[in-house]
């Protein structure tokens, strides 16, 4: 890519703001259930993601998102209904995706460039995937709550991962 003069290659603002919003949603969902350890882990991830998304550090974004996801898992281990766990996980992945998107848009196009439309479409399509996943997960839970053994769910999940692996081109 040609570089004309000094271009500010900091993270793109729209995706950065949306990423912070998604992370806030994830932390709030975890915090709502008041599992101290889970909330602590989730809150600990926030400054990392903020640093990553504002200063353009992929490592910061990943560490932050991973810590928040850790909080979701801890909350799940202690015990929580599926709704907050599904929403928390999806929101964390969205925060991670948009954080990285902010960084790569910034790298390729810079901060002065008009990029809002492309960023919004990317954010929307990632969010739609999250909503569909939550709906699917909740559907499986509603079906499985009839008393099917945990093993059946595990096999289903492994099968799904295997299927995804198989669709590589």
């Amino acid at each position, binding site marked *: 890519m040609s570089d004309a003069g000094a271009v500010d290659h900091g993270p793109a603002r729209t995706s950065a703001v949306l990423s912070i919003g998604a992370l806030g949603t994830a932390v709030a969902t975890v915090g709502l259930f008041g599992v101290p350890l889970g909330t602590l882990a989730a809150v600990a991830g926030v400054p990392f993601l903020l640093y990553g998304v504002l200063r353009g550090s992929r490592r910061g974004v990943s560490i932050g998102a991973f810590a928040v996801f850790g909080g979701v898992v801890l909350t799940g281990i202690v015990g929580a209904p599926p709704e907050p766990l599904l929403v928390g996980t999806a929101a964390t992945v969205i925060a991670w995706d948009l954080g990285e998107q902010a960084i790569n848009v910034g790298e390729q196009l810079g901060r002065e460039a008009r*990029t809002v439309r492309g960023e919004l*479409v990317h954010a929307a399509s990632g969010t739609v995937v999250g909503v569909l996943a939550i709906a699917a997960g909740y559907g499986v839970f509603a079906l*499985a709550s009839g008393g099917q053994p945990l093993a059946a769910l595990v096999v289903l999940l492994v099968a799904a991962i295997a299927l*995804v692996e198989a*669709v590589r081109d």
Partner: protein
Amino acid sequence: MTTRATHRWYGVAAVALIAAGAGVAASRPALLLAGVVGVAYAAYARSGAAPAVDLEIERELSTDEPDPGGTVVVTLRARNAGPFLPDLRLVDGVPGALSVTGGSPRFGTALRSGKVVAFDYELGAERGRHDFDPVTVVARDASGATEREMEIDVPTSLTCVPRLVESSMRVPLRAQTAQYTGPVATDTGGSGVEFFATREYRPGDAMTRIDWNRLARTGQLSTVEYREERMATVVLAVDARAPSYEGADDHALERSVDAAGRIAASLLDAGHLVGIGALGTEPCFLAPGTGEEHRTRIERTLAMHPALAPTPPTRTVIVAQRVRELRRRLPANAQVVLLTPLLDDYAVALVGRLQASGHATTVVSPDVTAEDTPGRRLAHLERRLRVNRLRGSHVPVIDWEPDERLERAMAVARVRR
């Protein structure tokens, strides 16, 4: 055109595995379910292939012949003749010597099939002919897992020719002149307007030049001589070797070319014959001449000749060859005004060689040295020494300091003489 994986979803499957593992270990079906989200995003990342890109791009300039320092608005318009592009990024190929003064030549959007998108930005116009580079296009699939990069060439160019404006700046010239009547006062008596001397009458002297008063007073025949005024043939030689590209935002070559333009204008307006030469990557010589057409030729040579390009030369300049060519093409009676920043000793040697081959030389030297670091102070002092060395050997040097008007530098140089 290249297609590559961005690896930005690398590790998302871990979300599924960690949630599932922890769910199984702690016997929490609800946590196990959260793994579904991980699976969904892993599938999302794999689903998209790099989109086929079929774009029609146009570039429009508000003007393709701007004035120097003016602004050119560049509008880039892209029509999507292919399928929906969820993440399209365009980077315009701004010409290397120009700088963006407003907006950004980069743009990111989503573009539906058949739709047109446009964006614009501003460029500051600078001397020369500038060709745009191809537009870089990057298209990603919705998840951003794969991207396709290509370049689309949209040939566009803009030329910016500084006009030689009317000028009454007095350029201190050397005494070397042509045989034609013109504006340089010589130290030879003859026909002219200013009184020079009287001498004894010689048969053949024009009757109008006989000093009749003196004949009446003393009875002796004598002839009045006037100071002869001749036309000068001046070649403005611009030193365009690598050192001339030194200097922060306004490098020495820009100032040299600017000075050459103004000197040429004032010399032409005063009735001299003016030519242009350059010591740069390519041979450049415009034989001395006069008249409107020649004025335009000088404008275009100074603005667009590749030897005077505003970006530093990428290959080495064989200076000795350029100097040989210049000396061969200089008319015998031509004097030279050499425009050089005097940043190396070769520039001084060059003046010596020009003088030795019979061309009285004046040096116009834009000062681009600074004094803020020890290294720069040294360069500054070395340049001072070169100026003094030249002046010591009776070569007039017009030392043109930054932020000083050229007219003033000329006036100072005239006083020195």
